[in-house]
């Protein structure tokens, strides 16, 4: 039945990806106009004047990278503190129709860190633990401003590469929130309500089933929450099961809308970058390189998921419908791998199937996505992560053409290389260091549901998800413990701000350099060859670091099952 569906397999992927790629172009134009306005008159300029007036002294002036980073960090510290306070004081705050109780301290810290950092790794189930007030004020608000932080940081980075001051964070974050995220979320939320998603401030409903049992059906302002969850690459679900829940993703139509909302802004961020640095062909090459990675991951995931789960081997079950374990059949068979790949390419982390139930090698694909973390990536930050690889690619490729390496006409020297490799090291340290610590100590041993390779994958996935600020879970991990909450909370904070501050420092350093003229002898960053170079850098510097861990996790599990 499913195999005959018009949207079987790759058709959905083609529809979503082509549709988003087309939409991302005008959206990128809008992003440029909104985030980095070039006109002194018109409605956008009036908005800008408003933003400047709102912050008084703080929103005055354009700054270098140091001041910009301080502004960004101050804002995020405030965001984190307010979020943590709201969660800690939940029982006493309004909009708590179901009388949700207090949260454990490490969970409050973890959740605060998780939503401040745009990760939305959830060690709780929303419908059980959170009041409507917490969902809206502590969590949804952060989903807006954390995504806005990423967008602001990318804009600043691109300005620096264009040789300009990085800007004013307090202005940028307002532009991102009010001109980009709010209008888009409103649009998507309306579509979702039309698709049958609940949107109410009332509490849960008591229902009596046909058998006479009483059932509590949780509901709330779901549509609003899901819109920004997807658009802002947040991923934190209103309900515990995330977008597999029938109220969080009721139908095929809402699934298409939310899948598109997941990838469209990260795609548009590439164009935003290209427009500000003034080299759109460069952006095309980066977009193409990211697309190649995306399609490769998607291809592997779809091929692997087309086989039934290994647990069915030898059982009298139809073998031609692929792996249906942990899938929501209302979305069609291609929807799960597509979402799984997109949600981990970007730093979204919402799920519409259970990643734990993916076939072993399919399960590797989301991990690869998060290890690399720059296949479009999170809103703003995905492109920033790619920038780190670009610096290294340009450095090696620049030498190969026989010149002191330069990127966008500015020389890449020891300072820039140092900061870029530091960012790469931080990412690897968070994942490998954290996994090693928990695999070897009682903090981690015993927390996975499964022994052996699959259990290892669960630990590896959790740290990977935290370090990539992704937030998806492999599940099957008893992760609401103090060590898990504290460790992944710290990893999320570290993995969020180190990879934002270091690239901004690079951009600041490059902005101050004398430009060199381009000639036939300079490395062109807008050619397919450079695209290949970028891909090679990502694979050899990024992916190879994780090959041993991959071998002991998903690859070992896969090889065990094929024997």
């Amino acid at each position, binding site marked *: 039945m499913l195999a005959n569906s018009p949207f079987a397999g790759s058709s959905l992927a083609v529809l979503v990806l082509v549709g988003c790629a087309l939409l991302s172009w005008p959206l990128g134009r809008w992003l440029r106009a909104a985030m980095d306005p070039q006109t002194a008159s018109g409605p956008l300029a009036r908005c800008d004047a408003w933003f400047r007036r709102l912050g008084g002294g703080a929103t005055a002036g354009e700054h270098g990278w140091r001041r910009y980073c301080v502004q960004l960090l101050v804002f995020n510290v405030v965001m984190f503190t307010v979020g943590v306070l709201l969660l800690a004081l939940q029982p006493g705050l309004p909009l708590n129709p179901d009388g949700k109780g207090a949260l454990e301290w490490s969970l409050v810290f973890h959740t605060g860190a998780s939503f401040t950092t745009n990760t939305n790794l959830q060690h709780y189930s929303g419908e059980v633990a959170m009041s409507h007030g917490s969902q809206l004020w502590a969590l949804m608000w952060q989903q807006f401003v954390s995504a806005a932080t990423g967008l602001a940081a990318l804009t600043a980075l691109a300005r620096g590469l264009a040789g300009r001051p990085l800007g004013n964070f307090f202005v940028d974050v307002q532009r991102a929130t009010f001109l980009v995220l709010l209008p888009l979320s409103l649009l998507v939320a309306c579509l979702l309500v039309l698709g049958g998603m609940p949107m109410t401030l009332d509490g849960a409903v008591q229902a009596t089933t046909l058998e006479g049992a009483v059932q509590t059906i949780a509901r709330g302002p779901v549509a609003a929450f899901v819109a920004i969850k997807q658009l802002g690459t947040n991923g934190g679900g209103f309900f515990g099961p995330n977008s597999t829940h029938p109220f969080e993703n009721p139908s095929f139509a809402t699934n298409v809308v939310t899948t598109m909302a997941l990838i469209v802004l990260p795609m548009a961020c590439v164009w935003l970058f290209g427009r500000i640095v003034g080299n759109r062909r460069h952006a095309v090459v980066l977009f193409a390189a990211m697309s190649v990675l995306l399609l490769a991951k998607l291809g592997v995931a779809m091929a692997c998921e087309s086989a039934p789960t290994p647990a069915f081997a030898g059982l009298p079950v139809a073998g031609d419908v692929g792996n249906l374990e942990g899938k929501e059949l209302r979305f069609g068979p291609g929807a799960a791998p597509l979402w799984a790949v997109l949600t981990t390419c970007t730093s979204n982390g919402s799920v519409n199937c259970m990643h734990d139930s993916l076939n072993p090698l399919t399960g590797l694909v989301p991990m690869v996505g998060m290890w690399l973390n720059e296949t479009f990536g999170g809103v703003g930050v995905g492109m920033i992560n790619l920038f780190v690889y670009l610096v*290294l690619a340009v*450095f*090696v*490729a*620049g*030498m*190969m*053409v*026989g*010149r*002191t390496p330069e990127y966008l006409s500015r020389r*890449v*020297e*020891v300072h820039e*290389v*140092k900061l870029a*490799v*530091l960012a*790469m*090291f931080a990412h690897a340290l968070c994942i*490998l*260091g954290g*996994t*090693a610590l928990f*695999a*070897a100590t009682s903090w981690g*041993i015993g927390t996975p549901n499964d022994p*052996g*390779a699959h*259990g*290892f994958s669960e630990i590896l996935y959790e740290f990977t998800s935290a370090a990539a600020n992704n937030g998806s879970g492999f599940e099957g991990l008893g992760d609401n413990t103090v060590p898990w909450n504290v460790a992944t909370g710290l990893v999320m904070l570290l993995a969020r701000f180190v990879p934002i501050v270091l690239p901004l420092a690079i951009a600041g350093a490059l902005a101050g350099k*004398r*430009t*060199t*003229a381009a*000639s*036939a*002898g*300079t*490395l*062109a960053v807008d*050619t397919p*060859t450079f695209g*290949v*170079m970028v891909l*090679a850098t990502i694979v*050899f*510097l990024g992916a*190879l*670091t994780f*090959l*041993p861990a991959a*071998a*002991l996790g998903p*690859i*070992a599990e896969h*090889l*065990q099952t*094929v*024997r």
Partner: protein
Amino acid sequence: MAKPPTSLFAAALVRPALVQAVRKLDPRVLARNPVMFVTMLGAVVTTVAIPTAGEELGFVAQLAAWLWFTLLFANFAEAMAEGRGKAQADALRAARSDTMANRLIGQGRIEPVAASALRKGDTVVVAVGETIPADGDVVDGIASVDESAITGESAPVIRESGGDRCAVSGGTRVLSDRIVVRITVERGHGFLDRMIAMVEGARRQKTPNEVALTVLLAALTLIFLLVCVTLQPFGQWAGASFSTPVLVALLVCLIPTTIGALISAIGISGIDRLIQRNVLATSGRAVEAAGDVDVLMLDKTGTITLGNRMATAFLPAPGIAAERLADAAQLASLADETPEGRSIVVLAKQQFQLRGREVQAPHATFVPFTAQTRMSGVDLLGGASKRRIRKGAVEAVREFVAAQGGATDPAVLATAESVARGGGTALLVAEGSQVLGVVHLKDVVKGGIKQRFAQLRAVGIRTVMITGDNPLTAAAIAAEAGVDAFLAQATPETKLARIREEQAKGHLVAMTGDGTNDAPALAQADVGVAMNTGTQAAREAGNMVDLDSNPTKLLEIVEIGKQLIMTRGALTTFSLANDLAKYFAILPAMFAGIYATGPGPGPLAALDVMHLHSPHSAILAAVVFNALVILLLIPLALRGVAWRAAGAAAVLRRNLLVYGLGGVLAPFVGIKALDLLLVALHLV
């Protein structure tokens, strides 16, 4: 310069390099290179593990041995690169042997002092056969000097006071005459001293690009250290334990030892390749900058055109026979020893079979060229007739004719004008009051130079021709030579301004110069190559000195700079690309026992795509490959990767294919072959 051995692996170089390779195992030396330092720590740890290895004794001992070999190969590469410089330095030092000098102490009195006692500002007298004691400027006299100690060129050069040929170097020998030299440098800072320091690499500092690459390699080492250290707890989870030597083997294979081992040899040999071409760079930084240069400012004369203009045609005035013009021109040029003059004599002979006549002094008075008259010629007074023949600049000859009461035919002036417009120089020839016609002198563009410029354009380098000619002439020659732009009627000031202008537009500029008035421009240029024949001021201002004084060499200098950086990039790529195959050799060997359900190997043994003999042979083969590849790449590091005149896109494509794709594939073949060999030799 005493020619050093030219073969890359001459025995005279290899033997001392082997000794040096062992000496350089000093941890203090290795600490300069993070990759090799970590390799050394790994070798020490593995060596310490030998006694406790039990059954694996043979395996661990071999592992330790190959790790030490890895270090020795790296040291050998560096020692080989330094060795070539050392051989040259020794030859130079022989020339510096302490000599005696005759110091002038006022009123022509002379006192003999040791050369080492001379101070800056002293004046010394150097006579025939004596060695010039230190660098300085000739303040009096003219002499032919044998500079072969420095340049390797046996033909003597003329050094004279005043002008742009006054600089002499310590260690060179006066062959004729006697000169007075003012010492311009303190002892130990002379040209020869700088050369020795340079070729020895004694004061070699890492260049900016080299430092950046070292940082990248150190960080990658740190990342792979993290990978290897975390592997132990990962293994524990799976119920496996890895021995330290095996983890060290994985680490050494993953960290970029290939480029780490060769990085210093690449830098030294870049400078060495310059020295081979008789160019001395004051720093490695200058060589790197040469690779970045995208504008070359080239003097027209000597670089783009043959040094001299040649007569190419006789264009007679209306009513005058061409033969008469040729005859008069030849007569006027007989005593003219300048190349232009000689070319007129030759042309007349070729076209009209007019033989150069001996004109004896009683009959003829030769009028030499001066900057004031801008004419030369001859007055023939013998016999009845009195002939006054002049040739020279159009204006000068016109005035000469007018003074004799004659007039210049407008047709002749038109001819002269068209010659000038075509890039040539018109010489007017007159006899008495009559203008006979025009001799067309032409710059002869060097053969092959146009193709050279086209190559440069392909790699993104623009050429700017500098000339004192008027814009008309300059444009014509520029078109013929194929340069991209020209600077006509150049003065030292306009040269400097042009360099600044190019730099402001983001270009990096290289230029050559010799005169003292070139010094500011040489200092301003990103790469300033001073001619060795030039003045001391010019030699100090530039960051390179060309001992052959051949301005065309600028092109080679740029190539060497590019090649140096390219070699670094190519070997870095190769080194990193190698990791894939090494993973596929070592990981299956390490993980073979994990999750095994029976007595056979576990599921991860399937990763052994190369089907290697055993875990031990696989690990050893990877380590041996890692060590041998350093040895195999030493010639490439010393020679540099092949340089082709192509745009950046094509170069990148080619290097990515050769060193990237090649780097991925080569170790699969190499490790498999070594595995077979190790088994055949019963080493595992």
